[in-house]
């Protein structure tokens, strides 16, 4: 039985943006990500990556030079005997010298927080879920792509590792000016790290908004987005301080700064 996974979607992601793709299960998030990576070809319509159409087979190499894709389950992405061999897989295809390969693999491993000496000879299949994800990410960023697409990269990770992983993505975006497209179910993570939220429902794009505009999507009963504790708290604050709550106040740090500021003012009052 075949059904249309996505349709009628038109949007573009500028260079260096961190876009979060959200939506309920089965809404077409993964398919959209795979279309962007050139893993699927659309039956109708066009997908352009840096002005290169993904529809044509002859541009496949060009697309794979520009886009890296990290799968939802790292076990689908790791296939070599050692961590070193797995990360260097793409580089060997690009015919780099062995010296360059070692250097780049080392850099990529250190970038994702894996010690080169400690991990290079280990089997990727014997690592923990978090470590496997780091190896998969290293295998993707070692190719120095312009665009990094991640399919639910933090599912199954403990909160501490999840935070570290997302901070790592944010660092990659800033330092390497990489465009990051992250498919996620975690609204708070998206609000914390993304510059833009793309929300899908039933294979269609229903909202394309800035994190500060999330209330529009939350007010829509058709979208199964549950407000995070921080957003609920923000709503309470809006009740007590009408018109004084900034719409950008959706991130933990900003909220803490706001509360601290308020408390300081109360403390200063005679």
């Amino acid at each position, binding site marked *: 039985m075949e059904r249309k996974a996505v349709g009628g979607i038109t949007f573009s992601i500028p260079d260096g943006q961190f876009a979060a793709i959200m939506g309920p299960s089965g809404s077409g998030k993964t398919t959209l990500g795979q279309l962007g990576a050139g893993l699927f070809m659309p039956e109708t319509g066009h997908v352009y990556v840096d002005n290169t159409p993904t529809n044509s087979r002859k541009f*496949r190499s060009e697309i794979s030079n520009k886009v890296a*894709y990290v799968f939802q389950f790292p076990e689908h992405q790791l*296939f070599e005997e050692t961590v070193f061999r797995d990360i260097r897989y793409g580089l060997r*295809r690009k015919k780099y010298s062995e010296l360059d390969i070692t250097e780049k693999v080392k850099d990529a491993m250190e970038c994702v927080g894996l010690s080169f000496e400690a991990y290079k000879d280990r089997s990727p299949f014997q690592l923990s879920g978090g470590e496997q994800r780091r190896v998969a990410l290293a295998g*993707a960023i070692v190719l120095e792509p312009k665009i990094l697409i991640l399919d639910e990269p933090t599912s199954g990770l403990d909160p501490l590792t999840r935070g570290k992983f997302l901070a790592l993505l944010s660092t990659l975006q800033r330092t390497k000016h990489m465009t990051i497209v992250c498919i996620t179910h975690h609204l708070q993570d998206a609000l914390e790290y993304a510059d833009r939220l793309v929300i899908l429902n039933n294979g269609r794009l229903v909202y394309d908004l800035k994190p500060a505009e999330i209330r529009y999507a939350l007010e829509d009963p058709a979208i199964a987005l549950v407000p995070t504790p921080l957003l609920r708290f923000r709503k309470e604050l809006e009740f007590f301080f009408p018109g004084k709550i900034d719409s950008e106040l959706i991130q933990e740090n900003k909220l803490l700064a706001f509360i601290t500021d308020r408390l300081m003012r109360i403390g200063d009052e005679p």
Partner: protein
Amino acid sequence: MSSFGALSTLQYVPGDSFLHRVDPRSKYGFVASYSISLVSSHSLTASLIYTLVALFLFLLSKLSLILLWENLRAFFVVILILNYFQVALNGIEAAAQITLKLISFILMVMLLLSTTPPEKQMEGLRKLLSPLRRLGVKTESCAVMFTIAVIYLPLLMEDLMRMMQAQRIRGPRYGRWNLAWRGRDMISLLTPLLLTIFRRAERLSDAMESRCFLPGSERTVFYQLKLDRRDIIVLILALLIPFIQFNFE
């Protein structure tokens, strides 16, 4: 946008055609009789008739032509290699015969599995094998193993496809005909694929045991199979096929 190619053969396609309604035991009987007669036929005319019968049944099943194309396309290389040897050793007629036999057999297996839900396949097989229980054969376990294999093969194919996609996205391909690199890439997928198979098997056995599954024990079924007039006709046809062929040849 994605397809499992040859593995589509093993997936049930819901429908309400005549073939969908036939009892699985009758289908097994017909396919077994058809296959034996097909293999033992020696003339090109007989092979052609078998192919036409299979095509007629395909039309009866109301399955999509894309499914048929996907299945035959997957076996194209095998048919081509066999044809090469047949033409070289026994001539063009033998090659045509083997091609028709292969297409008919693939089509028949596809029809059997695409028109029968896995639970009915299992129940049908269990009932057919039940006389062997008296000989000490664990028929229940055989039926469960067969069904699990049929259900899980597409999932394994999906895993394999994901791994191949992961390879593809991580660097340019060396061309479709660079067989050495393609072979090396395929071999490197064996370890993760085997690991996935064992992990899935372990998880499945844990899940079955947690639901009190006891290997070999007698089980009740949700779908009660009942032979009606239609199924009897199919069984009679199954019995007639070898006789008709024997008389003609």
